[in-house]
């Protein structure tokens, strides 16, 4: 299934006046595609994600998922920027939260939960509580939790913003491998241009508020990608182009 966003507009009431946050956004995320959204602070990226996830309604326009699919599978799940793990649940139980909602039997839930923990390289940390895990590990659990419900679209809101450079680099590499292997569709919001270029098939650049699409840059490099791509002149070329668009 693919995500189709058409003419999305969203505004907020602030002191009686209307503040336009998103103005006529249209784009698609095809099955298996990794699309990043970059833009200056306050361009409405987080609002866009909430509209797409159905956590907020839009004023105008349409968010839809098109194509044939299993109606049991959730359309979308989110990895949040802040830490949104449940501190009263263990790592495994955090991951199985969404599976409980899908009424999957306990044994099956735990099997799936363990599979995703292993996948995020956290095997053996099943019973650890969030506060016993490092920042990078917590974000891995959060990613596993969102992926475990097997959504058509995985939405990620600056998942690496709070991580140090080394931890973020490792997580990027693992994410690249896992996402590419599974053919997972991802919509990724970030401030970090190199991260967007490294991970994405397409990078959508938004303007300042109200957010409109300024340009879309296709990253012509097959996935999974490795460190060599990050060090190539092609990579630097994309960085230059995006930085120019954003300055």
């Amino acid at each position, binding site marked *: 299934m693919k995500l189709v966003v058409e003419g999305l507009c969203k505004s907020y009431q602030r002191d009686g006046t209307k503040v336009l946050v998103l103005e006529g956004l249209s784009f698609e995320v095809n099955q298996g595609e990794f699309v990043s959204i970059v833009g200056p602070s306050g361009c409405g990226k987080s609002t866009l994600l909430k509209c797409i996830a159905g956590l907020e309604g839009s004023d105008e326009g349409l968010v839809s998922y098109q194509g044939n699919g299993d109606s049991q599978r959730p359309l979308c799940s*989110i990895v*949040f920027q802040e*830490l*949104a793990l*449940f501190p*009263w649940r263990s790592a495994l139980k955090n991951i199985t*939260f*969404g599976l409980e*909602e899908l009424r999957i039997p306990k044994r099956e839930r735990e099997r799936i939960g363990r599979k995703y923990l292993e996948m995020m390289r956290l095997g053996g940390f099943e019973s650890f509580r969030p506060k016993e895990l490092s920042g990078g590990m917590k974000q891995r659990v959060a990613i596993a939790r969102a992926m475990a419900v097997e959504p058509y679209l995985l939405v990620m809101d600056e998942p690496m913003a709070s991580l140090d450079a080394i931890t973020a680099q490792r997580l990027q590499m693992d994410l690249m491998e896992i996402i590419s292997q599974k053919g997972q569709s991802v919509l990724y919001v970030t401030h970090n241009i190199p991260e967007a270029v490294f991970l994405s098939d397409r990078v959508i650049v938004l303007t300042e508020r109200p957010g409109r699409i300024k340009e879309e840059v296709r990253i012509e490099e097959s996935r999974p990608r490795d460190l060599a791509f990050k060090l190539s002149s092609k990579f630097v070329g994309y960085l230059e182009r995006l930085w120019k668009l954003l300055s």
Partner: protein
Amino acid sequence: MEATLLKGIFGSRKAVSALSLLAFLSLWEVGSKTGILSPVFLPAPSGVILVLLDMISSGELWPHLFLSLKRIFWGMLIGVGLGWIVGMATGLSPVIGAVLNPILACLYPIPKVAILPLLILYLGIGEASKVGVISIGVFFPVFINTRSGVKGVDSIWILAARSLGASTMSIWFKVVLPASLSYFLSGVRLGSGIALLLLVTSEMIGANSGIGYLILSSADLMLTDRLLAGILITSLLGLLFSYTLDLLEKRLPFN
């Protein structure tokens, strides 16, 4: 040798606490025995303990203790239950909050003892009025704490649960409930102190049984050692509640 011994004893805070308690009791004991403290007004701790043991072995204590525990149990159960339900409801639903909050805010400052005569008028002098006043006293701290716990639940957890497909019921019971549990428990802790206070008070007004009655009737007969034994029991009950709550809190998944 002596220095290391002192260091060994005072190095452990638990030992210091035990010594402090022991020193206090010894001073009291010596004071009473030497007649510096009048044994009529302040009998020696050993005397109080002997009276207590006597009351235990003669079986005199048990009916009083049993009735007191029964009253406090039902009072706590009803007060905590209602406090939790109303706290969750007013915290979760702005409409229910708008309806109930002003009424409860008016009732909250009333000293609960002041309601006791009214309850006796309504419910009679028996068990119901005592259980009732304890319930009302326990209700308020549990209600207020649960409500602020529910209101303080980080909205990111609710968003995360919703994005994982959680129903409203799931959000209440699997997110809001565990997230507000520590607030709820500190409400119960406050409530247990109030319960003890109201138990003893209500047993002093028109009762012929219970720890409160034991204390008051001993005072009437100038039996200060029995009176102090009664106070000792209330102190032990308070410690028991607080210890039980400590255990519960440690078992909370937060810790």
